[in-house]
Each structure stands twice: as structure tokens, then as C-alpha cells.
């Protein structure tokens, strides 16, 4: 090997080492940053914990937590049937063509439109045009628009990835396509559909921009009032209902009114992060078990 080649070779080796170092450093730094960030949010949230935060009073977040869960359940009641139906349509009934292209681009744009734009659409249609005040139901509708594409795509890919024998076997016994879908395909695809639903729920828990002008920024609940038509009844969907994430947004400006607002918002953040952690652990478990099952089948 002559001298020139040798120096070239050395140079290449040195750059390779340096670049590997840079990639490794950036990668490890980002993972460390993430763990620190999550840890910081949770630890900082619980450091400012006061027992009264677990109440329904002025410093408590229980009302907001209840609103969040109630709103997510309401929105899933709307988006799950519609999403599964649309997913089934995509997987079993749609034919390639202009219409399908348009449907696909619709789903794509629904899933990547900014949530504030969806929220404004909800504000316009469910509040301004109906003349109602801000209410939980309008918020649930806005959130269900956000979760609809997620559930649709998950259902579609779940049904498409089933072995064709499932469908063929069922059709061969004389079942109609609708019976096959309802009694064979959807039950078999359920784990992956469920993953999509849980992901949608996770998105709903943290959603704030879409709710700003739909579900409202205040909460008045009387826990002893169970008359569902009354505006203070917890279960009345047509009352204003501030969710946990909106509560953080509102508290940001309330430092002068409530000296504890920073601690409350910190604790609410910690609760939200723990909720999303749970969601991602569950979806991960579910999708792992699906993968294992599929691999065993093969």
C-alpha cells in the first residue's frame, strides 16, 4: 500500500469513527432528554401535590378529570361505530377508482388537519349554528372527528391483514358477506381495532385546541344533582365541561387569582402524562401480542 492510499484510508476510518460518535451522541442525547422530560413532569407534578387536589373544589382536578373521561367516552361512542363502518367499507366494499382515491385523501387530510381547525369547524357548526352554549357534547363531536381517521385506518388494515381463509371459509358455509363481516372478520380483527380505539382515546385525553371553543373553559358541577337536564348535573352532556388539558391552559393565566395554580397545573400535567404512558403501554402490549399470534400461525 503506498503512502497516499494509506493516508486516505486513515482519513476515511477517522471520519467514520467521528460520524458514528456524532450519531450515537445525538441518539443517546435525545433518548436521555425524553426520559428526563417525562421524569421531570411526573416528579415535579407530585412534588407540588396537595391532598385537596384530589377533590372537586377550587384547587381540585377531579371535576376536570371526570370531564375528560366522560368526553372521551362520548366521542368514542360516536367515532367507533362510524370508524369501524368506514374501515369495513374500505376493506371489503370499495373498488379502486376516483372515489376511493378521494376517500383516501379525505382520511389523510382529516388525520393531519390542525386540531384547532377542527375545533373551529366544531365551534361554527355545533355552537354558532345551533345557537347552543359551549357544551361537552360539541367537544365530543369535535374530538370524534379527530379520532375517526385513526380508527378507520386501523380497522381497514386489521381486516386486510386477516388470512383470506377466514372469509372464504365463512362464505363457503353459505353466510352472506354482511354475516361474515359481523361474525368472523370483525371479531378476528378486534385486537388491532382495539389498539386503534385506545390510541384514539389517548389522543382525546390530551386534546385541548379542538375543545377550546367547543366544550368550554369552565366547569360547574353539583355532585348531588342527578337530574340529567339540569346544567350542573355531572352526566348532562349539554353543560360546559373543561377537560384536564384545557384546565392547564386556563390556569396559565390565573396565577394572580389562585396562588396554587402553578402546582395544580403541574399535577394535572403529571396525571396527563401518566395517562398517556398507560395508553402507550397498553397499545404496545396489544400490538406485540397480535404480532406473536400472527407469527405462531405461520
Amino acid at each position, binding site marked *: 500500500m503506498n503512502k497516499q492510499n494509506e493516508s486516505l484510508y486513515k482519513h476515511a476510518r477517522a471520519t467514520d469513527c467521528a460520524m458514528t460518535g456524532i450519531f450515537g451522541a445525538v441518539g443517546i442525547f435525545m433518548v436521555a432528554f425524553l426520559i428526563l422530560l417525562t421524569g421531570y413532569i411526573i416528579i415535579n407534578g407530585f412534588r407540588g401535590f396537595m391532598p385537596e387536589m384530589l377533590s372537586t373544589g377550587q384547587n381540585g382536578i377531579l371535576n376536570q378529570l371526570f370531564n375528560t373521561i366522560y368526553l372521551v367516552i362520548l366521542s368514542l361512542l360516536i367515532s367507533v361505530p362510524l370508524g369501524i363502518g368506514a374501515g369495513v367499507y374500505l376493506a371489503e366494499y370499495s373498488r379502486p377508482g376516483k372515489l376511493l382515491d378521494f376517500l383516501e385523501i379525505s382520511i389523510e387530510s382529516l388525520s393531519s388537519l390542525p386540531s384547532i381547525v377542527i375545533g373551529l369547524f366544531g365551534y361554527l357548526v355545533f355552537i354558532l349554528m345551533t345557537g347552543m352554549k359551549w357544551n361537552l357534547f360539541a367537544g365530543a363531536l369535535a374530538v370524534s372527528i379527530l379520532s375517526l381517521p385513526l380508527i378507520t385506518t386501523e380497522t381497514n388494515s386489521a381486516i386486510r391483514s386477516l388470512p383470506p381463509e377466514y372469509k372464504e371459509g365463512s362464505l363457503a358455509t353459505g353466510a352472506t358477506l354482511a354475516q361474515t363481516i359481523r361474525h368472523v372478520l370483525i371479531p378476528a380483527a378486534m385486537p388491532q381495532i382495539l389498539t386503534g380505539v385506545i390510541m384514539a382515546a389517548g389522543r382525546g385525553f390530551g386534546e385541548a385546541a379542538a375543545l377550546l371553543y367547543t366544550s368550554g373553559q369552565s366547569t360547574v358541577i353539583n355532585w348531588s344533582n342527578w337530574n340529567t337536564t339540569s346544567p350542573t348535573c355531572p352526566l348532562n352532556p349539554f353543560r360546559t365541561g373543561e377537560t384536564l388539558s384545557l384546565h392547564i391552559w386556563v390556569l396559565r393565566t390565573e396565577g394572580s387569582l389562585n396562588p396554587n395554580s402553578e402546582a395544580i397545573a403541574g399535577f394535572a*400535567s403529571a396525571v396527563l402524562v401518566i395517562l398517556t404512558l398507560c395508553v402507550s403501554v397498553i397499545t404496545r402490549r396489544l400490538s406485540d401480542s397480535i404480532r406473536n399470534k400472527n407469527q405462531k400461525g405461520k
Partner: protein
Amino acid sequence: MIDQYTLKMVKKDRRWKGIYTFCGFFIIILTVAIGVFLILKGSDTFVKAHHSVFEFLFSSDWSPSDSVGDDSGSIGSLVYICGSLMTCGLALLFCIPLAVCSAVFLSEIAPKFGEKFFRPAIEIYVGIPSVVYGWIGLTVLVPFIANVFHAKMGGFSVLAAAIVLTVMIFPTITTVAADAIKNVPQGYREAAYGMGSTRWQVIRHVVLPAAFPGIATGVILGLARAIGEALAVAMVIGKTRSFPKNILSPTNNLTAAIAADMGNTANGGLHNMALWSMALLLYLISILLIFIIHRMSRKGKNA
């Protein structure tokens, strides 16, 4: 001879087909409705109040009147538009090197560690609500910037907004870029290694160019997320209606203006109309980005 039961089942089958088809079409109707309603409401400024689009986009003179029926005042939104573009541009500038390096790291250099820890970690990143990012930005990042750079407005700045956005779009760009890098055929790498290339040479001259369309898709997806992010940015940008002098000065952007003022303005007044026009602008930008992504992924599929 078809018996009664079969007939009933066939009817039922048709009905279910109708229901599923309706669900599919509902998504199309919904998407079109969102567009139509936003366009109708957002064009009031120009149709009903007779302000020009040119004024809206290129003037920085913003003093719309807030009473219904009085259409005087000016609606130049250049400050907000610039605020949105600057924060997003800066965020991309920060995020692209970090995200591409991380993507290379997790798919080329340490694939096992990447799959076991990096991806789950990134999934958690995606799940953290944007308000929480905003809150951390407000309580940690803003004071930090105020202390370190002695910013005049106490840390509320373009820089703070850009950093918050960087953290928020990092997972999007990284996962898409990592997938693109993974999908580069193994033969490309082997051929380059066979000629005596080092790993860096393979990455730089073979893997990254081959994965470029996928990485670009990830960047545009990140941009789409960044431009539409509302509350997290609104919490740290400072909401001052002036052009930022440098990255340490506060400004305002489209989403923050909408989030802050939509509820406080009279419905039907010029101020309110102008806010709806901003929402329309946001919608059009997002649709444009979505369209670009759609075209790019279509090309990728055909290639």
C-alpha cells in the same frame, strides 16, 4: 326456490352494505363540509366587508373594529403570518439534523437498541399532550431563556416557541425518516460495503440519498404539525403584535391569535371575520402540505 329465510338474509346483507357504504361516504362528506364551511366563513372578510386579500396577506397594519356592522379598520395579518413561518422554519432548522441523526442511529448504527428502547420512547413523545409541552415551555424554558440570554420580554420569544415545536415534531420526522432508511434495500448497502466503503461513506453516499424522498415526507409532515400547533406555541410566544427584531424577541402567530381572540370578539364583527380568514389560511396551508405528502407517497409507491 329461494326460501323466506334466505330472502331475509339477502335483504339484511344489502342493508348492511348500505350502512358500511354510508360510513365510508360520511368521511368524504365530513371532509368536504369542513372545507366548505371554513371557506364560506373565512371569505366573509373579503366578500361581505370588502377588504382585499392583498391587504390581509401583505400588510402589517392590524386594527380591525370589533363591532358588528362596522367594517372599518385594517386587517393586515403579515405579523401573524411571519410569526408562524419564522417559528416553524426555525423549528425545522433545529429539528432536521437531530431527527435525521437519530433516525440513522436507530436504524443503521444500533438497530437492536433502537427497536427495544428508541421507538417505544418516541411513541411516548408523540402521546404527550401539546398543552403539557406548552406548560413545561412556560415554566422551565421561558425562565431559562430569560436568565441565560437576558431577553427583554422575560424569555417569551420566537426561540422558545421554536424549541417547543422542535420537541413536538421530533418524533414525527424521526419515525418517518427511520422507516425510510430501513426500507432502503439491503443490497445497496452490501454493494457499497463490498467496494470497501466505511459505514459513514455508505450512509452518506448510499443510504441517505436513497431514503431522501421518505425523509422529505417526514419533514413536511413535521411542518404540517408545527404550523397547526396552537396552545403550546401560544403559551411561550409572548403574543406581541410586532415583527420580532431577533429570535429573542416576542411576536405572535396565526394559531395563537385565533386561540386567544376568537372567543372575545363579537361574532360578525370585522375582527372576528379576520380571525376566521386566518383559520381559512391555516386550513389552506395544511391542505397544500397534505396534498404534497400525498403526491410524494404516491410517487414512492409507483417507483
